[in-house]
């Protein structure tokens, strides 16, 4: 089973993306399903054992939340760019990671980077913390708390770790 159908979620998502690309028809569905089956078989050896998503629904919620954050933060950062530089207070924080697995940590770092104003630049070698550059660093502790509550906590649940 594993050999024929190594990554079921991937297969599904690929079929979905295929339909996104080509539009809906039965023909495309068949083709999408076929590719959704074939591609994972080809690609499987090259994909590390991801920590799998345990709660897909929570993931969806998380994504929508992230989307909203992106919009809001974008406006904020745009404002900061347009302001003179002297008002800028950039800084670094070392966010203490409690997510230790690679994939969830990557998702967290990505989320942080996607929301404007913060960029994940580096992981500590021992994965103890994530170094983040902040465009405008007002309050370090509240930012850390925000990240923990808004992103890390949900991700822990999603990935079940």
């Amino acid at each position, binding site marked *: 089973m594993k050999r024929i159908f190594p990554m079921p979620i991937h297969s599904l998502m690929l079929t979905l*993306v295929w339909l*996104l*690309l*080509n*539009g*809906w028809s039965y023909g495309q569905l068949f083709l999408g399903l076929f590719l959704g089956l074939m591609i994972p078989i080809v690609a499987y050896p090259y994909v590390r054992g991801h920590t799998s998503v345990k709660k897909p629904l929570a993931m969806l919620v998380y994504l929508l939340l992230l989307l909203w954050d*992106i*919009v809001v933060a*974008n406006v904020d*950062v*745009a404002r900061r*760019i*347009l302001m003179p*530089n002297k008002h*800028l*207070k*950039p*800084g*670094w*924080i*070392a966010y203490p990671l409690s997510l230790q697995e690679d994939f969830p940590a990557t998702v967290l*770092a*990505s*989320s*942080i*980077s*996607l929301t*404007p*104003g*913060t*960029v*994940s*630049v*580096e992981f*500590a*070698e021992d994965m103890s913390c994530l*170094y983040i*550059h902040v*465009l405008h*660093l007002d309050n*370090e502790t509240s930012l850390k708390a925000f990240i923990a509550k808004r992103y890390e906590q949900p991700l822990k649940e999603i990935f079940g770790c």
Partner: protein
Amino acid sequence: MSDLTTVAMTDYLVALLVLIGASFMLIGSWGLVKLPDFFTRLHAPTKASTLGIGATLIGSLIWFSVQQGSVHIHELVISIFLFLTAPVSAYMMGKAALHRHRPMITGTKNVKLAEKAARREGLKKPD
């Protein structure tokens, strides 16, 4: 009649989205010019790639869907790609900048952290 209104409505929406997208694009790139050091500039493309492209794509998506009378959402795939890759690009460039000990403007908080992070890149800051 309602058809016409829909068209008009979507026109306004599309125009708005396209302009919003372009604005964020412009602001992001302006940030690239204007911001004082590399790490601050690193924030700029995320704007362009998220809201800038996002809004433009949604505009395009809506417009083509209305025009062709069927749902036309393949633009989303571009967004998926960008959302997946933009943080990695930033991460890689950031790492490179840390590795190269790019200077930061005075007043940057917790510079020590950056130095600590840079140590990962195998080099002490030259004196």
